[in-house]
């Protein structure tokens, strides 16, 4: 009896297996609305077949683009590279272990609260700079963010504004300068702070001084008596920055970072 049952189940199972293995290959083609791909006998759909190649296969566009992209004004390269290596080591031996410790001792909602709090402070220079760039819509949005987050979000610990459809938009004085056509200037690798250039470094200083002068929520004043607040801000900044030195895993990370930074800033200024 058991034997018989086994046989029946085996049969049933084989039926199922067969049903699973039905392969109507034609459906692949039907599903492809955009192009008619030819399916080869073994089921291979060659993606290269649909592409238009240059006939001689001798175009040097990759080389041309990349060599042009390397062309960034970097007169202090030697010093910058040393600072890059210093930052890399500092990150690995000091900064990231501290961030890991921070992650270990605090629960997630506390870290989010800390990030929100400092982001809310950061909305002050954001507002300031978006006014300077004569962007009325963005300025209004940031003002609304500041109000909601400071009042409803209890001093910025929560971020109800983002949930209301007012995402954080960052504007700094470097972007304002860029908006008015100030060129990048030489590329700079700042100790600990990372990639920058002369224009953005100037912007950084202006934003810092501005924040001190405005003294929003009394935080900058308090911070001068309590350096731990500044340390917390730095740790939070590192905690929220995804970049890791060495993440490109390339001997040419310095060049790649330089290019990406320069282009990312251009993008931020243009938008």
């Amino acid at each position, binding site marked *: 009896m058991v034997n018989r049952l086994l046989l029946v189940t085996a049969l049933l199972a084989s039926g199922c297996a067969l049903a699973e293995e039905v392969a109507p290959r034609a459906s692949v083609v039907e599903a492809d609305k955009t192009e008619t791909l030819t399916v080869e*006998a073994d089921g291979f759909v*060659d993606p290269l077949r649909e592409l238009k190649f240059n006939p001689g296969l001798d*175009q040097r566009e990759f080389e041309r683009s990349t060599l042009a992209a390397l062309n960034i004004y970097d007169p202090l390269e030697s*010093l910058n590279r040393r600072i890059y290596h210093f930052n890399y080591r500092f990150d690995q031996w000091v900064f990231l272990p501290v961030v890991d410790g921070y992650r270990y001792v605090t629960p997630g909602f506390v870290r989010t609260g800390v990030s929100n709090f400092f982001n809310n402070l950061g909305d002050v220079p954001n507002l300031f700079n978006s006014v300077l760039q004569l962007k009325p819509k963005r300025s209004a949005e940031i003002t609304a963010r500041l109000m909601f987050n400071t009042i409803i979000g209890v001093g910025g610990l929560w971020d109800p504004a983002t949930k209301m459809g007012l995402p954080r938009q960052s504007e700094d004085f470097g972007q304002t300068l860029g908006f008015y056509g100030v060129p990048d200037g030489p590329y700079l690798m700042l100790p600990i702070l990372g990639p920058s250039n002369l224009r953005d470094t100037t912007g950084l200083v202006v934003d810092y001084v501005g924040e001190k002068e405005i003294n929003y929520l009394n935080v900058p004043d308090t911070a001068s008596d309590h350096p731990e607040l500044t340390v917390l801000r730095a740790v939070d900044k590192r905690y929220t920055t995804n970049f890791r030195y060495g993440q490109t895993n390339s001997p040419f990370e310095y060049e790649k970072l330089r290019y990406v930074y320069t282009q990312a800033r251009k*993008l931020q200024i243009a938008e």
Partner: protein
Amino acid sequence: MLRSLRLAALLGGLLLAAAASARDIDAASYGYPLTNPFEATIATTPPEQRPTLPSDDDIDQADYSLTLRPEREFTLPDNFWSVKKLRYRLAKQDHEAPLIFLIAGTGAPYSSSINEYLKKLFYQAGYHVVQLSSPTSWDFMSAASRFATPGVTSEDAKDLYRVMQAVRAQQAHLPVSEYYLTGYSLGALDAAFVSKLDETRKSFNFKRVLLLNPPVNLYTSITNLDKLVQTRVKGIDRSTTFYELMLEKLTRYFQDKGYIDLNEALLYDFQKSRQHLSNEQMAMLIGTSFRFSAADIAFTSDLINRRGLIIPPKFPITEGSSLEPFFKRALQCDFDCYLTEQVIPMWRARTDGNSLLQLVDQVSLYALEDYLRASPKIAVMHNADDVILGPGDIGFLRRVFGERLTLYPHGGHCGNLNYRVNSDAMLEFFRG
């Protein structure tokens, strides 16, 4: 009655045997949203169709480093300080569990995004997970590779095997029940060779080995990848380079949108916008990313072996030295150039090798045909529209793996690895 049933069973068995061919997943029931192979390769699965995975905070994990080539401490230049030891990542369960090794793809480090994804997937399913860099990655070449000329797969597998043994030695207190192995892209080819090596060295006795989107013929794969930067891209002219074109599109996209929001949905949204990329542009983008890997490999291999093709031997390099002139030279070398100028000469000198064809046979899956056919513990998952395959490659996989090949209709190159259907199939395979 009994006889007829037996007959039926026999017939059923025969039918089953006839159908013991590859598991072809049909497009309709598969339901993968991206039918364009290039889109799938670049964007991978839309976030809502990925499996739910634990966050990094919920995983007990750390990076460790191994000193495998102590002499490199002295022979490598100062600015290679970060890759004089080989790093790997281990996610530990708090009880005895099976351990799975993940091998990254071309040029990718242990922390590559696919490795991270696979780690989360397998960790959640109760495995200890060890993430390893690809033998073609900068750190592996510098810190673990004996010849630092990746491409001869059997040699790469030996290097990997030593790394795995060193990992086990370093983690001696980790309670491991059994060993599993997987890898994606080039890492899958490596995994096949490592598994073969394990049959004689017997250090791990891998219980199951899964190859995710492996190249079948390594030469076809690198030729295809080299070719991708030869597409005719609309919008490139004398004054606009390819990158400028891409950045213009991105800028316009963000300007239309009103703000910059970098999130996971960005790519899908971008492809739905007016600025979406054409197939040629996407192909160029994929090709570009591989060319950067090729440049890194060519430069590193040349430097470590002092071949003098890209950087003069004994050229003094400090942390402040500019590498730009060498980067420029390395950029002009694609995979084919690296193979011809560096791999083949070394392979010939070391092994009395002859023609390119012979090398291709030795380093591709062809070399393992008999082993793979006779090893029920090894399975392969591939996509019908994978850009690293050539005509006949899937036929080869069908012949060799039979029902152990699962062929998905879409996904491009590794684009569907994080699709829920695929992740379930992977876990199911290792569950046994």
